[in-house]
């Protein structure tokens, strides 16, 4: 059993995010981190390996040289090895272009389970896992809040607005997980030290099986950003201080009534 965990390198979740004014793509010159949603996919992979020690866990990251430490961070949770795809030709890819690179890299590595986070904290489209599944002709078991491997397949609870669907699927499959699935552990000191000596392969696009490079990068984007403008600042609102007995509630009711909310 091999699990590939594609992770994303995103701008620090606690900072302001910007678009690069020239390329209109995410400005990555700010401090970047492992997307926190990926930690739940990593934790799930580590738990599967704990239960079935012959499992191999491989973190996959598509990004520039500077994404290397993010791959090492992912390894520090206990994953076995990393593959980083670094190629200037990837720059400017939209969701489909990115999915093509991930799908080709995952096929090149070979896998039984591809384990994503359900969304990234920067673009937040949630499109990539389903696109990768489509490119590979596999089921897309997304938004899993429970995942169980059974003989030759999996069972998962897919979260939605009103509850969840329990589904079953053969392997190989593409799964994305939501935060409700587990509680990720922190990397141990031992894990952090061990990550330094774990294999981290660096591939360019020519190393990927079956990738049509003409379909990757800014020129192949199907969704094209035309303009980007900062949101105008919001005018300051009214702030009142309560007297400690809840009397300010009356002012709020009056404010809501004026705007027809009550």
């Amino acid at each position, binding site marked *: 059993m091999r699990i590939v965990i594609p992770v994303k390198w995103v701008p620090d*979740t606690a900072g302001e*995010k910007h*678009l690069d004014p020239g390329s209109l793509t995410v400005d990555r010159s700010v401090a970047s981190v492992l997307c926190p*949603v990926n930690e739940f996919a990593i934790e799930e992979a580590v738990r599967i390996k704990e239960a079935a020690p012959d499992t191999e866990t491989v973190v996959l990251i598509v990004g520039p040289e500077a994404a290397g430490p993010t791959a090492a961070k992912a390894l520090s949770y206990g994953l076995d090895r990393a593959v980083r795809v670094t190629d200037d030709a990837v720059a400017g890819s*939209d969701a489909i272009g990115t*999915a093509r690179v991930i799908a080709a890299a995952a096929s090149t590595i070979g896998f039984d389970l591809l384990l994503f986070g359900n969304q990234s*904290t*920067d*673009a937040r489209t*949630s*499109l990539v896992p*389903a*696109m990768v*599944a*489509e490119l590979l002709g596999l*089921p*897309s*078991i997304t*938004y899993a*809040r429970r995942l169980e491997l059974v003989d030759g397949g999996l069972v998962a609870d*897919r*979260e*939605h*607005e*009103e*509850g*969840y*669907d*329990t*589904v*079953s*699927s*053969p392997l190989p499959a593409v799964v994305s997980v*939501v*935060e409700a699935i587990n509680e990720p552990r922190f990397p141990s000191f031992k894990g952090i030290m061990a990550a330094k000596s774990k294999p981290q392969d660096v591939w360019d696009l020519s190393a990927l099986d079956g990738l049509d490079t003409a379909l990757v990068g800014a020129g192949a984007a*199907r*969704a*094209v*950003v*035309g*303009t*980007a*403008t*900062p*949101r105008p600042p919001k005018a300051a*609102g009214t*702030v009142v*201080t309560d007297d400690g*007995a*809840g009397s*300010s*509630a*009356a*002012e*709020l*009711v009056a*404010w809501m009534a004026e*705007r027809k*909310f*009550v």
Partner: protein
Amino acid sequence: MTELLVLVDHSGGAPRRITLQLLAAARAVAPALGAEVAAVWLGPGAAEHAATLGAHGAVRVHHWDSADAKGYVTLPQVEALAALVAADRPAAVLFASSNHVKDVAARLAVRVDGGVITDATGLAVEDGAVVATKEVFGGDVITTSRVADGHLPLIGVASNAFAAEESGGGPAEVVALDVAPSDAATAAPVTDAVVQASAGRPDIAEASIVVSGGRGLGDASGFELLERLADLLGGGVGASRAATDAGWYPHRFQIGQTGRTISPSLYLGTGISGAIQHRAGMQTSQHVVAINKDPEAPIFQIADFGIVGDLHQVVPKLIEQLEARRG
């Protein structure tokens, strides 16, 4: 005439609110595209709602009347839409920008070499192409984007971005869509569909008013208070990551960078400091009310009305007064 397709989002046999908003969005751009608005309903139930769809502007509804649509994960819907797209060559497809529907659009885009834009809050037509306005990075940046020429635009529309509006149209003509899912599409069956009770409360994405709670609530019982408040306002209940992580409220109601994004008319946050990760999920709400003990809480920077105070004092008083107004 070319069709502008609206993928009906339905639940329990009835269209969700977003479906009527999608029809309003479609009507706004259809004339400039030289297209007429048609709906696609995948799964049983379209005939009962043909009048509603028609009254909101759909001239016809393509209906795949099969339980297979939702009996298997995603793919039967993708195959049905791919068949319709191949036969009808629509100008564009509008869909609800919600999680499971986005999966359908994502796979369809790969299959028909289309382009996907999610979470559109505005639509226009320029040089014959649909241009979508979208708020990114939690609303800090507003972008316009379009799908590259020669590729089918698949545009996900955000909840509450368009107001549902009747067009005065007669019932939509129901046209049967006849497809049979492939073996690949039936590889992943849905074995159990669990609807978790929310006491008739609207979902946070659809609700006009959302009451939300965070760490300041102190424990899970605080959400009982918020549910009472929400029910008086006809609103939904959301939570910050701190509250869902603590297990006080289900994860599917989490608002923020790692959860969901909402744009209600009124967002009322209690015991939420408003860190950037939370604001990313609610900043585009039309009106923001905040109740928090800490006068320095960042939520007050974006609040239209703020109360510095103890929510455990203020919220019960608020409930009392709203009940009194009801009589």
